């Protein structure tokens, strides 16, 4: 062991060097967005995108949040923030709940039609879901779900189902059968095993599921646009209005500030859930 110390420390240096370089590569776009958002337009036109701002200003941030115009209303993207939260919580919960239960039932119980259901879900996971937009509009108008909060929540649940089922099924399939057999000997049924054994063990994969769903739902634009109704337009609709105005002057600093602001919630979830990762994994390690 001792003999290797020098070599080891060289390897350590190499390891850190690689990690730091990778981190720089990963941070570069965010850095560009951040410095751009802190510059004034004349400075941006100079075209030195990597340089630090001469005179940093948060004017673009204030404007993006509270006064950028999205059509006639000039209230920035704050308008959609609450709407996005209202859509996010129920949608994430619903889609993960349905996906977890379905994945659990498919992985360990083999009810009738399970193979078919799983096959269909697998196939759909690969289809660009915009294709379902048109028939879904028709179906929703038939049952009166169009342009409403429940409507958009149901849509997110529908389109989260394939991926959610998939990852939960794969995860549950890896759990030792002995555990379940023992529980069944003790008289536990379907729901009891799910609640008492499966869910507590599923924390790491729930975190992954949350990451996937929060990202997907928060960043969704087209479903929100079509199904949520104008009272519930999510933040991305306003973001799109600010950054994708096809004609007219573009304020890149406001664009960038608006994007970072819109990304704050998923970013926050990532940072918090990062710690949960560790805890979930620590809990998993006990079962060793």
């Amino acid at each position, binding site marked *: 062991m001792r003999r290797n110390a020098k070599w080891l420390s060289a390897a350590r240096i190499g*390891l*850190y060097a690689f*990690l730091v370089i*990778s*981190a720089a*590569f*990963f941070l570069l*776009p965010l850095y*560009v*967005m951040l410095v751009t958002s802190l510059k004034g337009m004349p400075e941006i036109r100079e*075209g030195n*995108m990597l340089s630090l701002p001469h005179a940093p200003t948060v004017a673009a941030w204030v404007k993006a949040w509270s006064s950028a115009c999205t059509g006639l209303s000039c209230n920035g993207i704050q308008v959609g923030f609450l709407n996005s939260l209202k859509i996010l919580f129920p949608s994430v919960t619903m889609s993960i709940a*349905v996906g977890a239960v*379905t994945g659990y039932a498919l992985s360990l119980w*083999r*009810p009738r*039609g399970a193979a078919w*259901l799983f*096959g*269909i*879900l697998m*196939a759909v996971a*690969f289809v*660009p879901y*915009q*294709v379902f937009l*048109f*028939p879904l509009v028709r179906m929703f108008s038939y049952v009166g779900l169009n342009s409403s909060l429940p409507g958009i929540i149901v849509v997110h649940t*529908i389109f989260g*189902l394939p991926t959610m*089922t*998939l*990852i939960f099924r*794969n*995860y549950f399939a890896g759990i030792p*059968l002995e555990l379940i057999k023992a529980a*069944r000997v003790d*008289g536990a*049924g379907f729901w009891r095993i799910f609640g008492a054994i499966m869910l507590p063990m599923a924390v790491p994969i729930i975190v992954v599921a949350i*990451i996937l769903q929060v*990202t997907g739902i928060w*960043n969704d634009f087209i479903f929100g646009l079509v199904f949520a109704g104008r009272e519930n337009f999510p933040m991305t609709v306003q*973001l799109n209005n600010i*950054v*994708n105005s096809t004609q007219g002057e573009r304020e890149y600093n406001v*664009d*960038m500030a608006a*994007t970072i602001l*819109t990304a704050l919630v998923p*970013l926050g*979830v*990532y940072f918090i859930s*990062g*710690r949960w*990762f560790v805890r*979930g*994994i620590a809990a*998993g*390690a006990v079962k*060793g």
Partner: protein
Amino acid sequence: MAIGSRLAAQTALIPAMLIALVVYCGSTGWTIWISMTSSRMLPNNNFVGLRQYEILFANERWQVSVQNLALFGVLFITLALALGFFLAVLIDQRVRAEDLLRSVFLYPFSMSFIVTGLAWRWLLDPTLGIAKIAHDIGFEGVQFDWLVRQDRVIYTLLAAAIWHAAGLVMAIMLSGLRGIDQEIWKATRIDGIPAWRTYIFVVIPMLKGSFATATILMATSVVRLYDLSVAMTNGGPGIASEVPAKFVMDNLFERQNIGLATAAATSMLITVVAVVAPLLYAQNRAAARVAR
């Protein structure tokens, strides 16, 4: 008792079954039907057989899209898996600031391409981006114009896509690595097996599940690849970075040509089923070990 549980399991599947039958199968049936009509903006029932498919397969942009997707898909999945796994292994070496590094690698996944695409476009722009900076600091010879070269542009999408997804792969792999029994490390160390060999011959096979999950997640995003192409190049220069999902979307909305759009979507669906079905069949047979 067992019957009760069976029933409960069956009941638990009702929502998923409903969604699968009504929404997925219903919509798919409708999509296939529309692809055999002459529909443009609104669906009509004017049956034209397989004419839309003939037009589709003869369409140069569709051909380019499919080729792009194949090339992109293979490279993306391979490289992102490799980089993600490698990062996970490095982070698993009890490094300092693990939390920070993990977040740094993961954050791109939280942002939509609608605008991170813009940042990437700036960075890769031959007159503004990295190329200009290289010139400014004296490297006059540096030419970096892949973003505007028809034969190279797809690799710039690849770079951005790996940047976006590698962190997620890393997270999944890390979670797998941490689940591995520490005894294995002790055992291999005692046997004098070098760490890299342990990773390749022992750890990677043990992480089969993690690799499968990551591969499936990335494969689904490959087939759906759309935002990235729109935000970075809008399919250009010319039609060099077009992808199938964008073909579907453009024809579905902007071009008001849902007959052709649904033909393209159906072709994608059939390809997916052709690939997924045998895999599923194999998996089903392997998964005979089920609680009864």
